[in-house]
């Protein structure tokens, strides 16, 4: 196996440097570097190098973003191999070029999303947002540049701080509320706008814990629930319930002092459930804002099938 001792450090550096701290940039950049340094002479050898490096990354950072990023890279490589009629040298240079372009394209696609979907934000609207998403920030920024006046409801959770900071800096009227007040405010809000960690095959999303709750409340009250996400977050996983979220991290949580005192008296009895991710099924999502367009959840699978060209390989006819 070739020398991959530099892989983890390289990944961490890229993620830190990248404006949005996105792990997927780390993955694509690192794998592109793997290609550049690879001494393989055949497609098989190249894919082996990519696989080995990916395994190292996953061992260290076992998250959905790393999985989907590496899967995206491998699939693109396989597709390019078919497209370039199996010319190795051409393939290698094409993949390196695309890998380097990826971050530039990602920034461009973020702007595209903002441009397309800022139309859904009209002057005077009240928005509820949850978690922190660079795409959501970009959309609100674009709407502001168009001269629209918006007010935003933000929940008091750790994950919301980047969004809260952004809104305060822009002097946008922002209301802070606990997530338990989501149903209370829902009727006053015009739309809900969130990002996604990952978009799954049926158009549902995996996102910060609490997203599903807000989606259910929005549907019950008749408020549109929009998800902003770049298309590289589409993955071919298909959770059927909350337990099927891959690699959900359960936090070691310290309860509030009032409860902690009671727990300390009887620690064996105290079970704690603090998941960090939940899964929102597609029927709660109104539309997805992506750089390939504004999609309904059912369009996600169409796009994935197109990308993976699965049906060409396994067609019966």
């Amino acid at each position, binding site marked *: 196996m070739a020398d991959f001792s530099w892989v983890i450090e390289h990944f961490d550096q890229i993620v830190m440097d990248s404006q949005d701290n996105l792990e997927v940039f780390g993955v694509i950049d690192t794998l592109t570097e793997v290609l550049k340094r690879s001494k393989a002479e055949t497609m098989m050898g190249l894919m082996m190098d990519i696989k080995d490096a990916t395994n190292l990354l996953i061992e260290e950072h076992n998250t959905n973003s790393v999985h989907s990023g590496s899967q995206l890279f491998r699939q693109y490589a396989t597709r390019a191999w078919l497209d370039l009629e199996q010319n190795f040298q051409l393939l290698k240079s094409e993949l390196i070029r695309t890998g380097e372009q990826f971050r530039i394209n990602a920034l461009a696609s973020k702007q595209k999303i903002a441009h397309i979907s800022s139309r859904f934000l009209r002057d005077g609207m009240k928005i509820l947002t949850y978690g922190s998403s660079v795409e959501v920030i970009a959309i609100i920024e674009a709407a502001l540049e168009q001269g629209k006046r918006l007010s935003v409801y933000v929940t008091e959770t750790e994950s919301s701080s980047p969004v809260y900071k952004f809104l305060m800096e822009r002097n946008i009227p922002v209301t802070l509320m606990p997530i338990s007040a989501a149903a209370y405010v829902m009727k006053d809000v015009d739309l809900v706008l969130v990002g996604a960690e990952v978009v799954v095959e049926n158009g549902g999303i995996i996102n910060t814990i609490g997203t599903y709750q807000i989606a259910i409340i929005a549907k019950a009250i008749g408020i549109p629930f929009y998800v902003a996400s770049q298309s590289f977050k589409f993955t071919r996983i298909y959770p059927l319930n909350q337990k099927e979220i891959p690699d959900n991290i359960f936090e070691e949580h310290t309860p509030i002092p009032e409860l902690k005192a009671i727990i300390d008296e009887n620690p064996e009895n105290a079970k704690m459930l603090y998941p960090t991710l939940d899964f929102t099924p597609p029927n709660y999502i109104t539309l997805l804002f992506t750089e390939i367009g504004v999609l309904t959840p059912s369009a996600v*699978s169409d796009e994935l099938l197109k990308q993976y060209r699965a*049906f060409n390989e396994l067609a019966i006819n």
Partner: protein
Amino acid sequence: MRKEAFNKQLLNLEPYEGGLEMFSHLPQFKVPVSYTGAMRADRSVHPAVVRLGIKYAKKKILGSNARGIAMLTAFKIVFKEFETTEEIAIAFDKEIETVVQFLEDCRPISFGMDNIKSSLKSEIANIRSMDLEGAKEYLINYIDSTIQKIEQADALITQYGAEKIYDGDVILTYACSYVVEQIIVGANADGKKFRVVIVDSGPKYEGKTLLKKLLPLGIECSYVFIGAISYILPEVTKVLIGANTVASNGAVVSRSGSAIVAMMAHARHTPVMVACETYKFHERVHLDSICYNEVEEPNTSQDNDKPIPSNKNLKCLSLAYDVIPGDYVSVVVTEVGLIPPTSVPVFVLRDLENN
């Protein structure tokens, strides 16, 4: 339309008299008489096809996968012994039509079989310039590879379906489906710890067949009749059923009774998985269970030997299939992976492009 179909028929069979007016547009169950004796004088059908047709009519071969593969195998025999003086393409085309029409007369063919017939006919274009022996070899090779693809598809579906069964799951299934049985057996072989609930209903009680296959493998099974489904559903984590076809609007055509199972599961937010090979996907749009269906012989229970006494005030109805709206289906398990029912038209369009 029924008159046209009647004129195309190769067999003169007595239609069932006790049927309902409301369903008279559907293919009716036919009273079995001698199959060769009832044949029209101007056509002849290969004995292998006659044997197969009788098996279909007597419900000896059940399940659209089994029927599809049996039809392909019969086609191989027919083509091997095929002799003609006519132009190759026309002769083969006519032969395919004759075979399928005979099988249709014995029992309406499934959508998967219809797709197989279309793809076989589209291969005729490739044999135009060949001689008889070359054409035979080409078509037989094509059939062999089609059968192989179906078997490979089933193996992949088994794998993807088994991956979706987790330790602690309680899987509910209805009647008896070949791919569902394979998925359950596969998950069990993978060492997963789960329970199976088999929901069954009269008059056919097909669930008993599945039960007999699963119990010897040590799989923990429960068996309930469909009337008790609301009783058992709180224990169930996932529903897994097979399909005759999935239509372009995502509607699943499956054994009569499946729709009830799916609707009840949906009302409880229990995921419904449908296992179906992509070759069975069809371009039709199914909005209800009435426009397309099959009227079967009423009271075909294996246990009950007493026929329903005839009475002019009594009409009996036994429909073969029903339709599950796409909204109630969480995922379709296919050989290309897990897809939402809304993505079925992708495959239908691809086939239309290819053909």
